[in-house]
Structures are given as C-alpha cells and as structure tokens.
C-alpha cells in the first residue's frame, strides 16, 4: 500500500515536470519562431519552412528596416514617451500616496473614496477625447502623459507600503523640525525603494507598450510610437496574411520577414532587461495583493 502510493507520487511528479516544461516551451516558442523567421531567407519563409532555426541566415530584413528609418524614429519617440511618462507617473503617484497614507489627515476617507470611484466608473473614450481636444493637446505627447498621470491601483499599492513604514522613524525627524517634504525625501522615499522600483517598471512597460492613446491622440507620422508604427506596417500587408502566398515569392523580401524583424526590433529592449528585473515585477504584484 505504502509503496504503491510512493510510486504514483513519483509518476505524478515526473509527468508534472514534463507537462510544465511543455507549457513553458509553448509559451516561448512563438518568440523563437519569429526570431528565426526574421533572419531567414524569403523563399524559406514563404514556404513555411522556418521552425526554430533561421534557414539561409541573412540580415536583409533588418537592413531594410534600418534603411527605411521610420522604426528608428518611432523607437526614439517611444523612449521619450517612456522616460518622461514614467517620471511624471512616479512624482504624481508619490504626491498622492504620501499624504493619503496619513490616517490623521482630515478629509482622507472622502478623498480616498473619490479616488476609488474613478476606478469603478469613468467617462468613456469620447468624453475624454473631447476634453483633450478642447485643451488643445491633440497631437502632443501631453495628451498621452497627462490623462495617465496616476494609476489608481498603483497609487493604492504605494499608499499601503507607506502605511507600513514605522511612524517612529518620521517622529524623531519631525521633532527636529523637519517638515513633510523633508520627511518624504529623506526618510520615506529611501525606505520605499522596493515599491518604487516595482511601480517604475510597471509604468515603464505600460508606456513602452502604449498603443491606444497614441492611436487616438497623435496624428503626425513623425511622432508615432513604436507600437503604432508596428501596427501600421502590419496593417499594410494584412490582405496577404489571409490570402495564399502568391506573388510574394519573386521579391527578395517578404512582408512576413520584414514584419518579423520589426517585431524582434521592438521587443528586444523588454526582453533584454527582463531577466534582471523580473523579480521586481513579481514583488510589485505581491505588494499590490497585500491590502489593509
């Protein structure tokens, strides 16, 4: 009886290991496939031969993208959007979270409710658009940055972290005459680096991937973000995706190859920092789940 249980447990464990390995492989396979496609010869791509390894390795698709230059401009724009946007996010999130973490603050609960309400009920896409339009912000990055200054969820994560900092630490400094600005800069922020790191990453990934707002508010092509540019490139070749591959084989470059190269180009920054930063992401999620 005992040995029987033991054997089935070992069998379960090995099946489980294999199954999970298959899940992980299935998760990353599409990325490996697209990388392989981006380096492959157009003939092999059209024939659907590329699996995990490039066939007839070449850089043509990338050379084409770099010569074209539009994606580079879009990447520069996205870097700007990400850096400024994330900075603004962090400043405003801290400015909101710090006072609201003080239970002695009069009016705190009303303010918290007012903030929470915006999470449950919001003006739709059109009223937002008309507001931005009437403020004259259309086709500027402020139309992207300003409406997204604070993520209410992230603000609550930061607030609950601040609430966990022992009050005595501030108490001694405030007896020495330091005001709240000094307390915030000298004591609270240095103690909050884990949450600041995690939220900075969440905001930054959000900006890097931001798409819908740019689509709605940015009109000039030279201000487009990477993701919108990518979508436009894809949209242009989309009829081919649904039809059979006739007519594309004579060209030296296939739309599929260029598309694959553009995709790899746009995810490299995230994939290259991911291994070093992923523990902060996980920490951030867990910080958010520990409430009150």
């Amino acid at each position, binding site marked *: 009886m005992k040995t029987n249980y033991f054997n089935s447990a070992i069998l379960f464990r090995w099946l489980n290991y294999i199954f999970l390995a298959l899940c992980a492989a299935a998760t990353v396979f599409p990325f490996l496939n697209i990388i392989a496609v981006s380096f492959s010869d157009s003939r092999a791509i059209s024939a659907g031969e590329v699996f995990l390894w490039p066939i007839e390795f070449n850089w043509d698709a990338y050379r084409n993208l770099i010569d074209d230059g539009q994606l580079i401009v879009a990447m520069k724009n996205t870097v700007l959007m990400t850096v400024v946007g994330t900075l603004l996010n962090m400043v405003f999130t801290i400015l909101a979270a*710090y006072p609201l973490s003080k239970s002695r603050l009069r009016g705190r609960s009303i303010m918290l409710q007012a903030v929470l309400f915006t999470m449950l009920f919001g003006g*739709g896409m059109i009223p937002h658009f008309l507001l931005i339009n009437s403020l004259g912000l259309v086709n500027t990055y402020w139309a992207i940055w300003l409406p997204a200054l604070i993520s209410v969820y992230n603000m609550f994560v930061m607030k609950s972290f601040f609430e966990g900092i022992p009050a005595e630490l501030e108490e001694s400094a405030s007896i020495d005459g330091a005001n709240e600005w000094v307390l915030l800069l000298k004591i609270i922020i240095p103690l909050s680096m884990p949450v600041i790191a995690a939220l900075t990453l969440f905001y930054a990934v959000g900006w890097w991937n931001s798409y819908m707002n740019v689509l709605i508010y940015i009109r000039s092509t030279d201000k487009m973000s990477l993701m919108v540019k990518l979508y436009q490139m894809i949209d242009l070749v989309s009829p081919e995706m649904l039809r059979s591959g006739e007519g594309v084989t004579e060209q030296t470059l296939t739309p599929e190859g260029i598309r694959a190269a553009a*995709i790899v180009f746009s995810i490299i920054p995230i994939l290259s920092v991911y291994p070093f930063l992923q523990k902060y992401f996980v920490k951030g999620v867990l910080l958010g789940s520990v409430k009150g």
Partner: protein
Amino acid sequence: MRHSESLHPQPAEAALAAAVPKRGLKRHIIRDKYLYLMLVPVAVYFLLFKYAPLYGEIIAFKNYRLTDGIWGSSWAGLDHFRQLFSSKEFYVVMRNTLLLNLYNLVFAFPVPIVLAILLNEVRWNGYKRVLQNLLYIPHFISWVVLGTIVIAMLSPSTGIVNTILELFGIEPIYFMASPFWWPISFVGSGIWKEAGFGTILYMAAMAGIDPTLYEAAKIDGANKLRQIWHVTLPGIRSTAAIILILQVGRIMDVGFEQVFTMKNPAVTQVAEVISTFVYTRGIENLQYSYTTALGLFQSIVALILIVSVNKLIKIMGERGLW
C-alpha cells in the same frame, strides 16, 4: 507582514493628534499644510482628467457638434439611446463583447489556477524558477506584437501551425478569417499572454497555506489529488474570488488593443466589440453623441455588475474588494 501594523493606531500620530487641540478644521489644515499642498496637483489631476469627462457624458443626451461645444449643442433627450437600442449593430457588439468575455471566464480564468497548482508541486526550486520566468514573458509584450505573432503563426500560407497540420494531411485552416476559429484564437492568445503571470497571486496564496494541513491530510491517507482538493483549493478560494469579481466587473469591456490588432474585415460579425465600435464610429467617423451613449450605457452596466458581484461574494462569506 509590516502592512498589518497600519491597522493599529500609530504612536506618533496619536501623539501629534493629542498635541493639536480638537478645535476644528483650521488647526488641522495649518498643521498638515504641506500634506494638503502635495495633494493640490493630485486633486487638479483627478478633477480635470477623471471627473470632468463625467460632465462630458452629457453629450449622450445632446446633438453634439464641435463648433457648438458641450453646453451650446441642442438637447436630444433619449434619441441616441432609442436609436442605439433599436439598431442591429448594438446587439452585435453587445453579443460579441459578452461572449468573448464569457469564453474568457469559462476557459481562461481556470488556467492560471491549474498552472499554479502544478507549479506548486514542483519541489526542485531552480527548475520552478526557470519555468516561471518563461511563463511570465508574454505578459510584458504588447498586444500589437502578440497579435501579429499570432496572425503570422496562424497564416494559412506561411504560418507554422498550418505547416504542421499539413504534415498530418489536414487542409490549411484560415484561422483568423473564420468566425468559428477567430474567437478560439482570441481566447487562446489571451491565455498565452496572461495565464503564466496570473499564477503569481495564486502561488502567493498557496505559500500562505499552513503546511500542517497537508501533513494532517497525508496522515488521513489523502493522496495528492485529494490534498489539492481539500487543502490547496480552499486555501486559494478568496484570491480566486477577488480575481473573479474583477473579471466580471470588466465583462462589458473587452480589451481594445487585443481585438483591434487581431480583428479583420472577414470576422467583424464576431470580433467587433463595444470599445472598437466606439473608436471607429466615434473617433474616426465623428458620431460623438451616439457613441457616447453607448459608452455611458457600458459604464453604468459595468458599475452595477461590479457592485453586485462584490456584494454577492461577501454574502458567500469571502472578503470583497471594498
């Protein structure tokens, strides 16, 4: 954890409160002037970008024209709602929105739970960490990229999936152009993006389960499956409840970006959802009032839903969202 300390009165704040005579608001404002000062830009932000658009919802009841402004446009009463509810397109986008979310609830919601249970059984920590890191990756990639990869992989002529099907003698399937396959591809790609990352909260909940419960179950002769059923699942019940509320609250709202990148003219009948409809009709075709009416209807239903699900979860004995 340290967060629980915030529940207890903090000595410093108590001391400060005692130092200030309870003589009204003015003293409080003077004492905390810097805190209020910090909140000024925050308040401006919320009033301007979160509350002002609520005023803009009025145009759902008006015939809004850009030149007349919100207040200057003529009143339309409920005309836009009447037009909306009597149109066929309204039922199509409502049906698609609800169906795609329902598929997600039924097929995608349980996946991270199952994955987390399986990952939790992995005893070899290095292996577990590698698996987790790989499974989280798609969460950080935008829908534009993921949607494009999905379209490329499912392409009937050059996609790897059809190449593999061909090996088994199966005719190429036009996944993205078929009203039957499109929703399946949609839900499948959603699982690909979020299932791995979704395990984090469940894994954390499982780490919090008292190990003696497993010991007791083992002594009672429970095998692995029964341990999972009687110990692990009850341990993650409240986490699952919270995630479920959030999902039901969003049932009127299919993510714009996923649909927008994956849809194409061949599948509009099953792929057009409220957000993409509002975008094309409102932003691109300038039917502001009509689409605002739809947006307002969507927001109100979503609010009612999330409030009632939260209440229901509390009646069932779990901790709600608020």
